């Protein structure tokens, strides 16, 4: 099975997010990008399929943020090929444009299965995988927690429902799957191994084809929420804080 995994770079939420002078976009100047969490799980899902059943795994990312680093890490984790799509604006693309760009790039790979995270946190139209499924007219199932081969040319996916339930859906390949989690956490590779890979392997750099996308929503403003209600903040030493918490619980009859 040929698997393609699509990776999106998103803002690192550990850092402070700043809005740029237009008031409509994130200020990317000092922003740190990380791999989108569910894309990381999509990669793990692909590598698990490779480990257990044999598959080739091509990983595609767009050349902004630390995409190089993330692609080398993917090779170190076990991917067979890493494609860096160049010529992308430094701030990245909206997710619809990203889906269209990935679609063009996938033409040369012709995967049986395309895996991507079900959602990226930084866009209004966050669902790259689902939009790609629609654009490519391929079967699409999102919010999955497991993908397994199921007979010739098919996979069995577990799609999550609320409350811990799931649906088992059999999907005919080629198909696109929007991964929420892999059955196991993304594997760790030591930095030394990534460095080694950086010396011995090369990224396949390909010029991205600029694709016009249909109507996208127009951003009016991006802003930090001002909550109507904010928590009453407690302060003090750990012991004083413990005392304050217990007092609150006592007042509500919740103290044990």
């Amino acid at each position, binding site marked *: 099975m040929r698997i393609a995994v699509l990776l999106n770079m998103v803002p690192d939420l550990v850092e402070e*997010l700043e809005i740029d002078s237009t008031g409509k976009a994130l200020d990317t100047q000092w922003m740190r990008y990380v791999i989108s969490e569910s894309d990381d799980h999509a990669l793990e899902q692909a590598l698990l399929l490779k480990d257990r059943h044999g598959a080739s795994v091509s990983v595609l990312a767009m050349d902004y943020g630390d995409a190089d680093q993330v692609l080398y890490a993917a090779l170190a984790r076990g991917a067979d090929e890493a494609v860096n799509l160049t010529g992308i604006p430094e701030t990245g693309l909206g997710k619809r444009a990203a889906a269209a760009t990935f679609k063009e790039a996938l033409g040369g790979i012709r995967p049986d299965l395309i895996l991507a995270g079900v959602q990226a946190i930084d866009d209004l139209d966050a669902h790259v*995988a689902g939009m790609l499924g629609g654009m490519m007219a391929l079967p699409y199932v999102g919010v999955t927690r497991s993908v397994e081969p199921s007979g010739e040319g098919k996979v069995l996916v577990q799609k999550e*429902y609320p409350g811990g339930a799931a649906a088992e859906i059999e999907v005919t390949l080629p198909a696109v799957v929007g991964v929420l989690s892999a059955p196991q956490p993304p594997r760790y590779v030591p930095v030394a191994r990534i460095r080694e890979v950086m010396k011995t392997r090369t990224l396949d750099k390909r010029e991205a084809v600029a694709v016009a996308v249909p109507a996208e929503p127009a951003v009016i403003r991006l802003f930090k*929420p001002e909550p109507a209600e904010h928590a009453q903040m407690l302060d003090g030493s750990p012991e004083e804080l413990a005392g304050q918490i217990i007092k609150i619980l006592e007042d509500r009859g919740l103290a*044990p």
Partner: protein
Amino acid sequence: MSPAGQDVWVHIEHLRGKVAGHTYELLGKGREIADALGGQLIAVLVGNEVQPLAETLAADGVLYVEDAGLAEYTPGSHAAVIRALVEKEAPRVVLFGATSMGMDLAAVLAAVLERPLIVNCVNLQVRDGRTVATSQMCGGKLLCEAEASGPVVVTVMPGSFPSEAGLAKSPPPVEVVPMPAPLEAVGMRAIRILEPEPGDVDITKSAVLVAVGRGIQRQDNIPLAEELAGALGGTVCASRPVVDQGWLPMSRQVGKSGMIVKPKLYLALGISGAPEHAEGMKDSDLIIAVNSDAKAPIFDIADYGIVIDMYDLLPALTQALRGRRA
């Protein structure tokens, strides 16, 4: 359906013969939007032998598509049907829940219909004839206001709007629509529903929950939370990353894909308060949040907040509670 293409459609999500609760929120909000646009509010119900569900839906009309092949939800079959309906009737706004089902359908439809997609919307208005949506982004740290002047597909975060206005006082008119799309080509079929694995405890029944998030950092630290829960007479639950790491079973997960809880006390330790987590716990009676980041969104839904490294607080709190008991 009004000819001007100003109608607002709401996808009626249902599972095991029950309408999903957020659907009524969408209908309530959809009514406001339809009125402002001068269109009708139409509920779109797709399934097999589920027509009775239409009775509770507050809408000007229900489009009902029934087929044995639609008995179990698959994104392929349901998207094919809704796509065909939208292509024919051209509604202005199509609303889905930002749920496991709605996310699938909205993304595929927006792509094939070449309509803008706006996801995780928490507020929706009509301004100068345009649809304006406010969406949560970046784990709840940002909001984005965006507009679409023409047709648009929107997913709405459950819990964003009141549900009362979406509940019908009298049954709406139902139009039974013949299958508008063949299902042979959708390339998928539902096999079965997997029930959640029974957990050791049912966190929805616990009055006191000590919830741990990624801030717990390591599996070895879970016992610290368990000790605190023990001292409080409560139970440990978790955010998704903790469960994804395999540190706690799925039955302990709170949020969109986990459990919805409403304990008397929810003590959130090292949880950022992402919308998908908040969905599962924001209606708790008392929320106390402990986080090292003063700007964590959890403080916007908590009653009390403490900015501290949880490892400084945890031992002191457990000890103080034990001291009371002794």
